[in-house]
């Protein structure tokens, strides 16, 4: 079976839906007026000065659209959100999750790409203050990172939106890949596999059977 594993704009925008309609002004306004958002933004201000060991690392090979910090954020998020080791699920080494996300990000329209970038920066940096982790998301231990996601999932509107955004990108990038389907017995496309016949167009209606008078 030959199938593309290249992510599409559809999946990308689907993942980005939580911030899809937040305009730049509205995005900032929402963040600013939300109580925890103020703390998060303040945290982000401090955190931009807080370096991470991953800052000196380049993004992975072939990455075209993600910034280095976004790449590392998604690398960390993938490990946190998809702990498949020891399960029958397809190992992360066999699914290029962040490469898929890179393609998806590259297919977003410009205005949405900007908003996603702002959101990811906030999500990464706000961990310094939000939850008082004292470090950026990319440097959180797994348990703390899980807690961070969970805290944000029942936080304010913008926190919920961003936690959902990161999760959706990671989940879609993993599960859309046919390599992940076998272990959960998902059948995928079946019509060709089953040899189903095409029925073609329906025949023209028999105009005598339903008279025009009947509907006027």
């Amino acid at each position, binding site marked *: 079976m030959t*199938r*593309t594993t290249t*992510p*599409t*704009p*559809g*999946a*990308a*925008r*689907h993942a*980005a*839906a*939580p*911030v*899809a*309609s937040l305009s730049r002004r509205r995005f900032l306004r929402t963040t600013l007026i939300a109580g925890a958002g103020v703390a998060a933004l303040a945290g982000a201000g401090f955190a931009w000065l807080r370096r991470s060991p991953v800052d000196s690392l380049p993004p992975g090979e072939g990455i075209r659209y993600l910034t280095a910090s976004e790449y590392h954020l998604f690398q960390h998020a993938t490990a*946190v*959100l998809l*702990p*498949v080791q020891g*399960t*029958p*699920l397809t190992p992360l080494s066999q699914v290029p999750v962040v490469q898929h996300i890179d393609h998806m990000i590259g297919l977003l329209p410009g205005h949405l790409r900007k908003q996603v970038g702002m959101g990811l920066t906030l999500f990464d940096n706000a961990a310094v203050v939000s939850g008082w982790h004292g470090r950026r998301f990319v440097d959180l231990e*797994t348990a703390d990172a*899980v807690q961070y*996601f*969970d805290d944000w*999932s029942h936080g304010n*509107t913008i926190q*919920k*939106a961003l936690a*959902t955004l990161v999760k*959706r990108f990671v*989940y*879609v990038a993993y*599960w*859309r890949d046919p390599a*992940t*389907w076998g272990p*959960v*017995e*998902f*059948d*995928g*496309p*079946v*019509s060709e596999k089953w040899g*189903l016949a*095409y*029925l*073609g*167009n*329906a025949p*023209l*209606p028999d*105009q005598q*059977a*339903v008279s025009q008078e*009947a*509907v006027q």
Partner: protein
Amino acid sequence: MSVQAIARGLPVVQASDVTSAQLTLKADVVIVGSGAGGAVTAYELARQGLDVLVLEAGPYVPSTAFTEDFADSLETLYEDHGSQSNKDGDLLILQGRCVGGSTVVNGCVAFRTPDFILEEWRRDFGLAEMTPATLNPYFERVEKHLSISTNGPHEIARHSQLMMAGAQKLGWSMKPFQRNVRECALTGHCLSGCKTDRKQSMLVTYLPWAAAHGARIHSDTRVSRVLSDNGRVTGVEGEVIDRTGHKVADVRVEAPRVILAAGAVQTPVILQRSELGNAQVGRHFACHPSMYVGARYPEPVYPWRGALLGTYVDEFMHPKDGGFVLEVGGLGVAEMCLITEPGTGKPYIDYMQHARFNAGIVTLIHDHNVGEIRWNGEYKTIDYRLSDQDFPSMMAALTAAVRLHLAAGAEEVFLPATERLAVRRESEIEAMVGQLRNRPQALRMVSYHPQGSCRMGADPANSAVDPHGRLHGVEGLYVADASLLPTSLIVNPQVTVYALANYVADRLLASA
């Protein structure tokens, strides 16, 4: 003119066929949109000898090119590549955007308009002709044309069988769906288009029939404005855009009659861009905000196997009984991975690892028409937020769905929220559901049924379109899609749209 049936595929002028930078066309009637409303009006008018031109913004994707991959299909067959959402970003609004429109990607569910809805339309909107006596012949006609029939036992998949047992325990009425399908092959891929033409969408019925009667169909053609002169339409203009987003040509069509059937989001946008219609255009948008309530069962269910939609609970359909419907729906892993929040990390992996044990219920409510569609000069906005008036209905539907799952034997039911909220026993339902508040980003919602943005009615003070489908105040301009619906339906709207489109076509013919 001789009528030559088209056995397979469609003759469509696509962007790749356009060689001139300016396309100028003429027709007796130009129809914008090729979905439920556009296809039916095209056929009904073409077979009466009118020169019909159908302009579709989306691509022509023949069924042979369907991939049965939901993520791929979102990209190729859906509006905004599957990302269309409300302003708050917490309601995904799915609409088809391809030749055949939403009928290509819907779940085949076919309901007639409930009588109590027609009664509301007559009582509140002066639509005296919206009676069962007037509409039943239209329903009968489309039901015959589209091979609509009740699901047989083989079309009740495992997930529906479980829910039927649950409903029986609860003493609730549950029925098999009626669907527009011939020889369903039970692939479960309805939302990605039916690859072998069993779904009787417009792609394989009314459009080839219209083409057989001479209707011309252009895809990749985005109408931006309706043209008018002294209160009378003269045609439309727009652009031909190829699949990479590259503009191929400008297009201008001269026509004395225009039918807008671009769907409940795009039709008002086109009218607003054209500065036509009254202040009601774009208002009163409703969408049946739905939740997919997932649950884990002790035995494998394989929710992607069998007919996508088998049965539904109609116990609460009437507003006096709650005003909601529960539909048992299947899904694949690409959808499942997004719709539920089982927890972060290991709980999520455990949930997905057992994907075949999951099943789901879709809730539909009779929402109020509180939304608005607006063109802001650069892009459209869908201003729809679940109203406080509708929130109790949503919670009642959710509570009923959880109860049904538990009665059907589910071990754990996941509430469709952004945080993990799960129920394992009946006694926990009230407390868990009670934690939900009507706030943006609190619920994970999807709309499959946008409607009502160019409401039909006798009084221009509360409607955009008159009882015959004509835009108030403009001669020769008709609307024939789900925009017309004065109130939300509760049930899947495709049959209502087919019937209304046929009704509008007949009124247009009568006035010609």
